């Protein structure tokens, strides 16, 4: 191994096999020189993405007015880049929805121009 490369071990989180994938890359050029330990191709693709542009599903709550409970839970329908999560949280915190809400209902459509919707994951009945 030359001095310019970095080795990292990441645990693949796609399936419960939890493969420990070790990879070596050049931090300057962002070029991956080796990947070991993935049991399948999905793991290889994931680890590349994870290293340079991690994607996450955001799960949180949204305020509900006139409901039996003060909050409904929500999530993004797709994973979004980790770096966009802070701004997305702020948008969600500034929003509120009138009860009733149902599982699957879209509350924010393509927020911040992201390729996803924000949907309800725990419904709230009207008071």
């Amino acid at each position, binding site marked *: 191994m030359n001095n310019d490369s970095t080795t990292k071990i990441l*645990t693949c989180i796609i*399936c*419960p096999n939890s493969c420990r994938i070790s990879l070596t890359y050049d931090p300057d050029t962002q070029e991956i020189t080796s990947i070991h330990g993935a049991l399948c191709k999905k793991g290889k693709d994931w680890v590349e993405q994870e290293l340079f542009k991690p994607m996450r599903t955001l799960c949180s709550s949204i305020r509900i007015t006139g409901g039996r409970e003060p*909050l409904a*839970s929500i999530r993004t329908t797709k994973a979004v880049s980790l770096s966009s999560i802070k701004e997305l949280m702020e948008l969600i915190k500034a929003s509120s929805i009138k009860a009733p809400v149902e599982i699957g209902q879209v509350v924010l459509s393509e927020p911040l121009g992201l390729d996803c919707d924000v949907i309800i*994951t*725990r*419904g709230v009945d009207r008071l």
Partner: protein
Amino acid sequence: MNEKINVSILIIGAGPAGTAAALGAKEAGEDSILIIDRDTRAGGILNQCIHDGFGLMRYKRALSGPEYAQLDIDSCHKKNIPILTDTYVHTIIKGDDHFTIKAIATGRLYSIKAKAVILAMGCRERTAGAISLPGSRPAGIYTAGTAQRLLNMQNTLVGRSCVIVGSGDIGLIMARRMTLEGAKVQAVTELQSYPGGLDRNIRQCLDDFDIPLYLETGIVSVHGNDRVCGITIAPLRSDRTLDMKNSQYITCDTILLSVGLIPENELSRSLDIAIDPITQGPIVTGDLMTSCPGVFACGNVLQVHDIVDLVSEEAKRAGRTAVSFVSGAYADTKELFSIYAGEKIRYCVPQVITPSSTTTLSLRVTEPITDATISITNDATLIKKRRYSFTQPSEMIQIEISVPENLVGSLEVNCE
């Protein structure tokens, strides 16, 4: 008002275990089923687990807790399985050929006659008392699950600056949740040399937000009079004593405890059901029947699971076997053999087994192991062998086995 109810199978708890047990029983042909839950909403703990990652095995997609729970609740509704919420089971009395269950709801007393009972009450968290946290007891100390409930159900953030003691999954999930809500999570501490929670949660809940995890670190003292104002932590030496020279004080207004879960077995104890000292859940047969014939257990009341999909699977099985018990297809003359958790195996469920049966063994290892081989043997005869490139105590391992007809003494599970 007194109400009398007669059912074949009574299920206590409408969380993922209870609802799946009911669906399992229904699929096996039983129509007389009732589920009781003390909460207002069915779904159990999943209602407050708003993060995703549930259902990856069962549905091949990542759902949040409430969504996962709702799928089975909806199926129960569709199949006309009644769920009594806001109802608290007070006592279970064993009769000759049935059980009498006393339950309380607002303005109502139920007396329920059932032929079989499925325990699906889940678990609760270990508290500060249970781990003897040193220092004062100011306000601002919560279990991670309580803080989760307050935040996700009642919109109350318990603090602005927080240290999490213990690296169990709920603690890790709360580290992320509190960070997203604007609190500063200073650190997570763990006594062991490995985290208590799943790898995926270390990565997504701590690493994503640069929250440090201090392994092999203990609590010197909690500070504060009325409210927590800080905590002193120190690394452990190899003899497990605190290395005070390297202690550090962290300013914080809140401490969350994520130091383990305990199956909730008060009701089981009232039936004198034998409890496993390690799992703290009932001792069961391969059919998930407890030491009290006709009483079955599944989900976190039996053993604390880390993946809900496995809870549902186990519970369905309990539902099916309860039906075979009720229909009389059950010979109680079957001889029982014990399963012995041997080398590097912390526990094994079921704890007893009958010859020529098939079952799923659930087990955990005692420490992180690379290139682990788990073998199940009986009197030097190998029954099954499985290899794992890596395993650790936070991952439950399940192995399906066919128990041979002729057993000599106990079955042994070992890891090397």
